[in-house]
């Protein structure tokens, strides 16, 4: 066996989920004792690739070499035996257990009796790697950073030589990140090889020796961190601009329809998901929202539509503060939302109900009496099916039997039916082919021409540049700035998305504040009191 410089080599690795190819012929290697950053947008296949290395998934084709030897990794146990440990983005810890017990579970030959000295043993192992650990502390009482440290100790304990960190800094503060990087450098010195999955460019430049870039499931290139630049990496990550022939109608500007000021919203986990954001939408314009997935888009949508509690800030629609109002009232005011989640069927539609039932799902309270108005429902469903050219055998077909594009059209159709004046649409073309996507763009453009203000949360920057009038960029719940789609570049947006540049404040002027606001500054101040009053009701 020839000695090799590589700890890990991927050769022609492919993996598909159903018809979606998550990884296509990936060739990638990791040198011994280096820190390799794995860079790519969401959905570029980074985590999938790493999950194959850690035995969660098995590749469809291709092979993995560890220390020059071809291996088959069919379980996390196999990966552990090969010295590969992964710290997952969602920690694999048992909340009710102590730190020591979380590690002890995997100890081989630990005997039948659970002895008290396991706490000492774990503490000693941790200190051997240079960590301070309270073995008695229960995970549920730990901070995010402590949990992460515990995960790292766990993989080190089991003899990992190759450590994979999946977006480790996503949940950390700046100080915690700094501490983590110190740990990484220390691990590197002691001969460990590290792969860090991330999409934050500044961190990539700071910590990594080399950077490997994936885009849309394909391997693009590996470059030396020392000789590259953030601009170069962004280009590799987002690709060159593709010219899409999407129509962008120019409409006459109206006054702001929806104004959001200093909005802060929490995520499900209780951390700040939307951080002091201000922006506004005019009638007849499409405002795109660009950002890496999980930057607060979902929480923003839910806050505007009244589905999520607002910490602070104002959402003013046609001169009325919506904060504290119920979702039903907000919807009645003409704000509609269609949100396509990752599994595409999870939100907004009942998969087993028919097309017509889904279309009237939101009207339940408008009908009089206890019976559903079938005739009206049928009429409306037929109209929408015709208008949006939804391909369905009949309006009585369960939604789950339709193809993805048609399902999304049903959802959009239902929201448009109510004649909204503000339409919030998140990932409307998720998982759709080109033709279905264009249909959706046309629908949105028609709404725009009718004077509707559209908030378009998207993934594909090329599409957003072609379709939207303005694009606001979010990064970790913060507004990075609002740019005109015809006066910006993909690279600029890419850099804003990763937090490398911020146009949130240019020349002392805060972005996202309308000059011709419906309120004067004094009235905005008063609105604060108003929102507090309405919160009580």
């Amino acid at each position: 066996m020839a000695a090799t410089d590589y700890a890990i080599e991927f050769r022609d690795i492919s993996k598909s989920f159903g018809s979606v190819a998550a990884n296509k012929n990936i060739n990638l290697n990791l040198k011994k004792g280096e820190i390799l950053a794995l860079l790519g947008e969401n959905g570029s296949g980074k985590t999938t690739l790493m999950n194959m290395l850690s035995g969660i998934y098995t590749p469809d084709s291709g092979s993995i070499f560890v220390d020059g030897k071809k291996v088959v990794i069919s379980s996390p146990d196999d990966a552990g035996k090969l010295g590969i440990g992964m710290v997952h983005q969602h920690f694999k810890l048992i909340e009710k257990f102590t730190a020591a017990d979380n590690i002890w579970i995997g100890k081989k030959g630990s005997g039948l009796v659970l002895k008290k000295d396991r706490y000492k043993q774990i503490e000693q192992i941790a200190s051997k790697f240079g960590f301070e650990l309270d073995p008695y502390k229960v995970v549920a009482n730990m901070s995010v950073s402590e949990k992460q440290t515990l995960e790292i100790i766990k993989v080190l304990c089991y003899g990992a030589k190759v450590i994979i960190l999946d977006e480790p800094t996503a949940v950390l503060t700046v100080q915690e990140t700094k501490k983590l990087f110190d740990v990484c450098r220390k691990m590197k010195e002691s001969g460990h090889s590290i792969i860090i999955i991330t999409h934050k460019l500044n961190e990539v430049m700071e910590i990594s020796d080399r950077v490997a870039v994936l885009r849309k499931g394909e391997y693009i290139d590996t470059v030396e961190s020392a000789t590259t630049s953030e601009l170069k990496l962004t280009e590799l990550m987002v690709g060159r601009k593709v010219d899409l022939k999407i129509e962008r109608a120019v409409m006459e500007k109206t006054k702001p329809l929806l104004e959001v000021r200093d909005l802060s919203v929490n995520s499900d986990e209780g951390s700040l998901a939307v951080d002091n954001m201000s922006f506004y939408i005019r009638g007849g314009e499409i405002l795109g929202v660009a950002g890496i997935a999980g930057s607060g888009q979902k929480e923003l949508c839910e806050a505007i539509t009244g589905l999520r509690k607002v910490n602070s800030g104002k959402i003013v629609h046609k001169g009325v503060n919506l904060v504290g109002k119920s979702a039903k009232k907000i919807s009645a005011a003409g704000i509609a939302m269609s949100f396509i989640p990752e599994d595409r069927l999870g939100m907004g539609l009942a998969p087993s109900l028919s097309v017509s039932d889904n279309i009237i799902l939101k009207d339940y309270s408008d009908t009089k009496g206890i019976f559903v108005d079938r005739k009206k429902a049928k009429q409306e469903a037929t109209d929408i099916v015709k208008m949006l050219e939804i391909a369905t055998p009949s309006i009585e077909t369960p939604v789950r039997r339709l193809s993805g594009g048609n399902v999304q059209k049903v959802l959009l159709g239902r929201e448009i039916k109510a004649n909204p004046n503000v339409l919030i649409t998140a990932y409307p073309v998720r998982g759709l082919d080109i033709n279905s996507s264009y249909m959706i763009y046309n629908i949105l453009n028609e709404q725009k021409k009718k004077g509707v203000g559209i908030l378009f949360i998207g993934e594909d920057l090329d599409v957003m540049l072609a379709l939207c009038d303005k694009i606001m960029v979010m990064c970790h719940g913060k507004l990075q700035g609002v740019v005109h789609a015809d006066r910006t570049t993909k690279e600029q947006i890419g850099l804003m998305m990763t937090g490398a540049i911020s146009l949130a404040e240019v020349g002392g002027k805060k972005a996202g504040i309308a000059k011709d606001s419906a309120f004067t500054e004094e009235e905005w101040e008063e609105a604060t009191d108003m929102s507090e009053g309405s919160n009580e009701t």
Partner: protein
Amino acid sequence: MIEVLTLFLFNIVIYSIPLLYATCGEIIVEKSGSLNLGVEGTMAVGAVFGFLAGCRADSLPVALLVSFAASALVGAIFCIFTISLQANQNVTGLTITTIGVAVYFFVGNGLGANWPVYRDCTRLVAGVSDLNIPLLSKIPVIGKAFFSHNILVYLAVIIAVLVWVYFEKTSFGLRLRAIGENPGAADSLGVNIVLYKYLHIMAGSGIMGIGGLYMGLNMGGTFEGSNCWINGYGWIAIALVIFANWSTMHAILGTFVFGFFNTLRIYNMPLATTFPKTMGWLSSVPAQVFSALPFIVTLLVLVISSIKSRKSGRSNAPTAIGVNYYREDR
């Protein structure tokens, strides 16, 4: 007077013990992260096969072994469906209850009564005699009530204690709890989830079977009538798991509470006549109320304990309960 009190307490124990078996069995199953609603059926199958085999061999050990094995097999079926084939746990559990009770009637009522060996079963029932624990059984009132029972009663308490020790003090117990809390975490540390789940669910189901056998022996082993021996106890056990907050030590106490209400059903009249001053009012309560009491109490207990655990946020319920684990899930 004293005799009635002793008998009352004695009977509470008798009614508690099958619940203790079933509850311990279900706690083991649930700690592995599976919710098996088939307790009733699992107990019925263990009861009928254990009983008939015991009659045939005229031996309690054989009855015990067969009831354990028959119910463990039912547990294996649950595993095959929910672990290997990823079927819905609730549906599988309910099916097991339906089929298990049907098997009981088919084998017991249909075949058992016609088997020649069946006629000899009185010997097995009589053979399970009460053991007087030296010294302790001499204590007035309590001695006769608690320390003069057959071996199956003591076995149930021993199992409850052992299961608790197993979960809290052994590495295997720790790993099983880990699976019930977060199978992904256990998996990433190389714990063989499938093996652990199979073994523990089968063992837990086997213990439920012994509970079923005990009920059969208590009924004198007659298959007559349209009631199954288990008579809803399996369902009460599922509620008791929650009441006991997933601890077999708590289950000892919890089952005793339920045994009390069950005994009241039978002993309300003797109590009323023996203590007319204090408990005379019991005789004026309709009998149906006493029959319904254990189930009403079950309902109340479930409501109260779920409100309590939600408020305190300190439920011992396994976090991953009822969710099938599939590694490649995204």
